[in-house]
């Protein structure tokens, strides 16, 4: 999949690796291959999901991207900047896949200034365009953390109280050039309930750590590109809600495709293309579309906020896409395969015959079906449905 494509280009471009140190023997003298870290990652993720906390579902996230001179360093291949952009593309796709009713904005900081390069919006395509456009931008000067944070505050402050506000800083520089006292900014972020996480591409910096700690975010230092990807994708899942986050009922519209009976519908402009035509042929003049149930403005895609009446327009699957965060599949119990003797010869879900290297199998608490490791990871990370429970009348609706 996509992960394999962004591998190393040439052997001599990669760093010096002590590959022999990655191989370890277990107590029986068998080799534990590189699959181990993946397994652990999956386990770790599962444990995090175990705690049944309230999540901030309607996320408003600002990405602060350092574009200072430090980004040109080549410790991530080919450069920190290009590597970050490549991973961000993946991140943005994943983010909107998992949080369809959330919004994302991008702020870039260089030359002691901060600039908003992507407005807070819910359309991944626009952000991807911005990110792709950045690959030719040059990185220079020093970043300014405070300016960037202030810029984020200015727009996050206006959001309604039920919105979860977040900032994710990708910092390559070890220094920041700030106009005032950054501690004041951090306090302000704290009082506003903005959760700030920092990923440093270089090393731990006190002020970044403090920012993350004070506002309840996470702090991480990137080891290599794979680790970077893991850390970044860790921010895809919605974080626990900030205490004091108000809950409210939000009015939303569920427009449906309107089809006029019989004849072809008249062409009309949609509100999303009325100003910019995106270079498409026809300039957004289409027959069908989604109509706002409140004011009948037309839009060509969902989710969107109605420009005329500010109603959030979504479709039911958008909401359904987020449900798995709220109702995760229970963690399976790890069992020795020898416990089952020969009664279970293959994985319940994928019908793979167990071989000698499958030392552990995974049993679901509820339906008591047994799965192989690969299915366990697939079920918990991607599918979020237990095939055993879903094929059993007694366990299907819990």
């Amino acid at each position, binding site marked *: 999949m996509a992960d394999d494509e962004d591998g190393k280009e040439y052997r001599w471009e990669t760093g010096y690796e002590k590959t022999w140190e990655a191989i370890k023997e277990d107590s029986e003298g068998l080799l534990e291959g590189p699959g181990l870290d993946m397994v652990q990652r999956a386990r770790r993720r599962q444990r995090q999901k175990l705690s049944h906390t309230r999540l901030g579902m309607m996320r408003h996230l600002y990405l602060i991207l350092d574009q200072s001179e430090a980004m040109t360093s080549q410790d991530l291949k080919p450069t920190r900047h290009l590597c970050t952009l490549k991973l961000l593309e993946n991140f943005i796709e994943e983010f909107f896949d998992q949080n369809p009713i959330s919004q994302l904005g991008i702020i870039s900081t260089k030359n002691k200034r901060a600039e908003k390069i992507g407005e807070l919006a819910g359309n991944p395509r626009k952000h991807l365009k911005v990110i792709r456009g950045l690959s030719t931008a040059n990185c220079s000067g020093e970043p300014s953390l405070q300016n960037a944070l202030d810029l984020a505050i200015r727009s996050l402050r206006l959001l309604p109280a039920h919105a979860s506000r977040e900032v994710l800083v990708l910092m390559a520089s070890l220094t920041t050039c700030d106009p005032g006292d950054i501690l004041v900014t951090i306090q302000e972020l704290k009082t506003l309930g903005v959760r700030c996480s920092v990923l440093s591409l270089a090393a731990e910096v006190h002020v970044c750590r403090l920012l993350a700690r004070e506002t309840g975010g996470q702090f991480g230092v990137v080891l290599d590109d794979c680790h970077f990807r893991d850390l970044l994708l860790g921010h895809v899942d919605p974080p626990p809600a900030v205490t004091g986050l108000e809950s*409210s009922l939000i009015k939303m519209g569920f427009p449906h*495709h309107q089809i006029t009976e019989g004849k072809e519908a008249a062409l009309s402009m949609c509100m999303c293309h009325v100003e910019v035509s995106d270079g498409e042929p026809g300039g957004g003049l289409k027959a069908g579309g989604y109509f706002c149930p409140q004011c009948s403005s037309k839009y060509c895609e969902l989710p969107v906020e109605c420009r005329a009446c500010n109603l959030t327009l979504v*479709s*039911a699957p958008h909401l359904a896409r987020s449900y798995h965060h709220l109702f995760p599949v229970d963690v399976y119990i790890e069992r020795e395969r020898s416990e089952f003797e020969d009664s279970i010869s*293959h994985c319940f879900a994928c019908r793979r015959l167990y071989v000698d290297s499958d030392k552990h199998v995974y049993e679901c608490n509820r339906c008591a079906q047994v799965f192989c490791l690969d299915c366990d990871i697939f079920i918990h990370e991607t599918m979020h449905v237990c095939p055993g429970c879903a*094929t059993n009348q007694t366990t299907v609706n819990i």
Partner: protein
Amino acid sequence: MSEESESSLLVIILDTNPGQRLVQEQAHVLTQCLESVIAFANSHLMLKAANKLAVLACHTKATEFLYPPPETGSQSMCRQHDGQYELFTHVEKTIRQSIQKFVVHHIERIKQEGENTGDTLLAGALAMSLCYIHRLERELTAGAKMNSRILIITGSGDSASQYMNYMNVFFTAQKQNITIDVCSLDQDLGLLQQGCDITGGLYLKIPQLQGLLQYLLWVFLPEPPIREKLVLPPPVKVDYRAACFCHRELIDIGYVCSVCLSIFCKFSPICTTCHTVFKTPGPLPIKPKKKKIKLT
């Protein structure tokens, strides 16, 4: 890459629920379906030597793989019969044997446990096929490509009770680039229609059961990339409106809980799903207290 390395996997999910209206009225319908499915499956295998096939049967209590048979290490291939390609004979024999076992087993369970109630657990069968496809894709040799799709043949109605499972499965399929096709024998299926729309598959409610094989061969045999070039039934407009959690009615404008995303048709001060207390809209004479009720 050369064409040789591209194969196509077809997973057929056959609904064998004895509670289906069609089956209850005329019991031989199931046999007729099975004949068509076997012929269709063989046609798929005939298109290319590298094509793969899996068939699942599911009803109210269980889901089982009919084909391929459980791996046992030694592959026993049957002898050529009437000059028919061995694989076809093998497919037909395996499917017939396993479906017989499956249905008999189900009847015994119904006798033991009493009533046969509930809906066909199609979402579970879909989940199992996704795991199976996931495994086969992992086992592919480097450079080989496999296009996977799932075809559901069902005569039951769809049930909102499995809504969440269905949605999770559809989104997984979309992510893994797996097309879900649905061939409905009896009723219009709103939920599965959404699944087809999300994954880019075809939905067809066949007008005549006698022509099942014809419909299967014409509509569902071509692979998704080829379908663009064919004149197929136009995609149905899917109604994506949400049903409110309180009355199960389709609504245009609704209220969504910011904590658990439940949908309501009217404003209520407390969420019935997660018991969160909401801030009342509009100015209030008394300042509302801090709410700290957690999702349990």
